[in-house]
């Protein structure tokens, strides 16, 4: 080895961080002075402290708070839909079809006289079950695939990599569409299909993160201990790639919401009459030209607000994790 890892400069030229982990706690330009001998002084690098600091940092960012409030709002709607909805979302009232927003129906009624507000509230339920489940499935499977690809490299990486690329050459929505058509629409199919497509995407991110870890000496040390590949992948590498995986999960969650809504809109997701935003937009879009805008607008706003909320949260988490 070249003798290039010598006692490093404490405060390196601007924009350069040489304190590794320690420097990751601060902004890019902020380098802690002195004290590489941590553990003794006022600067505390314990994991608990770091977690608490990161959480504190998150809570002080506005996008995270706004996104979080909207997200929690929708979760409350999903859980307490029965209590919150003023009407039965399925109850038709042929005497009050296409009623505009009013004191009795805040968001109006649809072509079958169902209360739009109640359907929007109840519509959060399925999407908020299916999307996280699908994303979780995708994250777990994708992490496993990415670890194997990154750790073994070579032929395994090549073969899996080409398969991933082949599938990803098509938009996720088309892939999902094909599967749903083949397997028939159901909540389970949705979870499996979206999870599968996401697994491939997430695998690529995880693989890249693993490649950065694979050549570090602690992996070599583990091999010299006679650790199995499984142990090295899951006990040694996995904890060190948790950050990118968390970011990937939150970003994908936003896409999952969008994908579920799109499939439902196309009629391959959640089937009517179950209240669902995508399906409701599809069902009422035809009446837009008649001026019944509320039947489409409010479910659309619901989708938008949820996706935006998740993205706000995801961006904030990413900023903190990547620091």
């Amino acid at each position: 080895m070249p003798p290039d890892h010598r006692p490093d400069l404490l405060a390196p030229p601007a924009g350069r961080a040489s304190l590794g982990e320690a420097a990751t706690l601060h902004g890019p330009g902020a380098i802690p002075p002195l004290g590489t001998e941590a553990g003794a002084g006022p600067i505390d690098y314990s994991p608990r402290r770091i977690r608490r600091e990161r959480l504190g940092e998150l809570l002080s960012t506005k996008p995270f708070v706004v996104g979080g409030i909207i997200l929690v709002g929708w979760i409350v709607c999903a859980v307490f839909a029965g209590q919150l909805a003023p009407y039965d979302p399925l109850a038709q009232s042929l005497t009050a079809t296409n009623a505009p927003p009013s004191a009795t129906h805040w968001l109006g009624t649809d072509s079958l006289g169902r209360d739009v507000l109640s359907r929007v509230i109840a519509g959060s339920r399925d999407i908020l079950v299916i999307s996280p489940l699908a994303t979780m499935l995708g994250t777990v499977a994708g992490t496993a695939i990415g670890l194997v690809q990154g750790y073994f490299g070579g032929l395994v990486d090549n073969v899996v990599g080409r398969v991933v690329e082949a599938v990803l050459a098509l938009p996720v929505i088309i892939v999902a569409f094909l599967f749903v058509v083949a397997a028939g629409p159901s909540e389970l199919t949705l979870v499996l299909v979206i999870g599968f497509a996401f697994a491939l995407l997430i695998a690529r991110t995880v693989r890249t993160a693993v490649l950065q870890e694979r050549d570090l000496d602690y992996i070599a040390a583990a091999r010299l201990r006679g650790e199995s590949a499984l142990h090295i992948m899951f006990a040694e590498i996995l904890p060190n790639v948790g950050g990118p995986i968390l970011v990937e999960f939150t970003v994908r969650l936003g896409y999952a919401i969008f994908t579920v809504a799109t499939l439902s809109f196309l009629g391959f997701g959640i089937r009517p009459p179950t209240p669902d935003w995508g399906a409701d937009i599809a069902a009422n879009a035809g009446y837009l030209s008649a001026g019944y805008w509320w039947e489409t607008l409010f479910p659309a706003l619901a989708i938008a607000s949820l996706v935006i909320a998740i993205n706000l949260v995801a961006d904030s988490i990413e900023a903190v994790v990547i620091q």
Partner: protein
Amino acid sequence: MSGAAPAPGAEAPALEVSHLDISYKVRGADRLAVRDVSFTIGRRDSFGLVGESGCGKSTTALAIPRYLARNGRVSAGTIRLDGEDVSRLGPEALRRLRARKVAMVYQEPGRALNPSIKVGRQVAEVFELAGVPRREAMERSGEALGRVQIPDPRRVMRSYPHQLSGGMLQRVVIAMALASQPSLLVLDEPTTALDATVEAEVLDLIASLRQELHTAILFISHNLAVIARMCDQVGVMYAGEIVEQGPAGELFGQPRHPYTVGLLRCVPARRHRKGVSRLDTIPGFLPAPGEVAAGCIFAPRCRLADQRCTVESPPMYQVSETRGSRCHYHQRAPDLPEADAATVSAGQEPDGPWTGSTTPLIAMRGVSKTFAVRNEKVRALSDIDLSLYPGETLGLVGESGSGKTTLAKVLVGLVAPDGGSALELEGRSLAPTALRRAQEQRRAMQIVFQNPDSALNRRHSVRHIIGRALTKLAGLSGRARQDRLLEIVRSVRMEERHLPLRPAQLSGGLKQRVAIARAFAGSPRVLVCDEPTSALDVSVQAAILNLLADLQGREGVTYLFISHDLGVVRYLSDRIAVLYLGRLMEHGPAETVFAGPHHPYTEALLSAVPSLDGQAGERIRLGGEIPSPANPPSGCVFHTRCPRRLASGLCESTEPPLTEVEPGHAVRCHIPLPELRRLQGKDGRAAELQGAEGR
């Protein structure tokens, strides 16, 4: 503005720093990184700042052209460059100052240059900034590169940075720094990333440029010997303060501050030998930033400190006309007691545990390793025959790219050697990779890596890291594992309270101790140490070397010790092997190899090491670059750089065999031993080269 100050360039010193305080804002609190630092550099003078990492030397340098990180600021004191107060400059004046008055050279030349622009263009830019027309700027660039002794400036100008070696790049950076003829050149660890032979060349260059140019130099280094060689005046920094200041020769000859005394003693010198004497250390840790201590900052680690030191902060005492020391007891500093004098009882098994056994523990025969880099075959190791005997330390030296680390990895099984290579452990053949070796064989051979940040899993606690090794390598569990864990942690001089901590919470030295503890978990027979102290400060290095020597004494383990630092190798090694371009050039008992006569390459390595006494003998300088292992020179691979090459042309045509010239001492050279002895002046003036010893 500084209009009132004496006209720039008149009689003002190049740099005048007075009572400088610098603080960094970390988590909302100001933490003082530099405290009350004052020094002056006259025109054409050179001033050295020396100290361990974290002492504030780079921070001080960065403050001069106001390059401090966003969270740092000068909270008190002034910096005057050419008589101008730097803190009062407006943006335009600051830009001019940075362009013309001060130039900086950093440790990594590769990061100072833009990788996608040809070198010539980058140098020319500096001239263009100074208003030179484009075509003339190119010409001037060629001259500038010639001045820093670049042999073929035209070729270098047409190259991209990645096509040049580190030493060459550092020359380019120095040429750029000097292009504007600055009043002050700041060199921040300029040779730390370079090999010893290249470092020697670059230092020679800087020294000769000083003669020619009218530039004052601020030289920053952790390396005492380099500072001693390059500077007239020296300031020793500790925890943000200059604790001692004075002319280099006097200061290093008769240090008057306990910290300087301690630092100098940490450096392994020729009189030190494992098993015979321990290295002195500086116990304790650097105070954490923001920790405001009453009294002397060094008091908690000082063996002279008494009540007064913990209460009363020492001023800079004027020790003599030219020297100052921040110590109440500066007269007594040279008599500083040793750190653990008790353990240095004389005559404690002076021969160490080396039994002198003739049955090798490890035998390597015809070990080669060829890497395929794109379509080229790069021969990293070529036909190495080497044995390790029980309980000994074999020191492996050579420049970067010589194959040291590859050999280490082949030995432990992280890299599979080429077919035909034979490795044996106690007479039993070893599979090429660790994966296929028996657990017993893996247990017997462990490695300590250079960089503990990479070697320790940052998500695991110390307890987990060592405990897991005990489970896998020693097969322990439950109570037995817990007991052994504590025992092993104590044997590397750590405490139980360190167990729940993660690597990021430990200092560099402690991290390396964890790595050593992990390697010792399975009681290995052979431990490969790949530059284990290169990333550490000298005082920490001394403690780690003591620890390695102690552990060897107790456990009888065999070390393959890799280092570019010959002083360190000499302290620990029983035998030495010298590698060049993947070939074994020389091996033999440590004393024989160091005393010579030796291979011309070994001779050059030894003479490149800057010495602390400042009186370097005749230096042997290696010209040229280390050839690419993809395309090694014909004949003797060293002939392109060899100062003793034979006129007959034999060296160019035929590769010399590795011949045993004395019992146990083999040299790969056409020149016969008596002739080498005569050439190297070993008959009469044997002491000369021995004067060149470790930092």
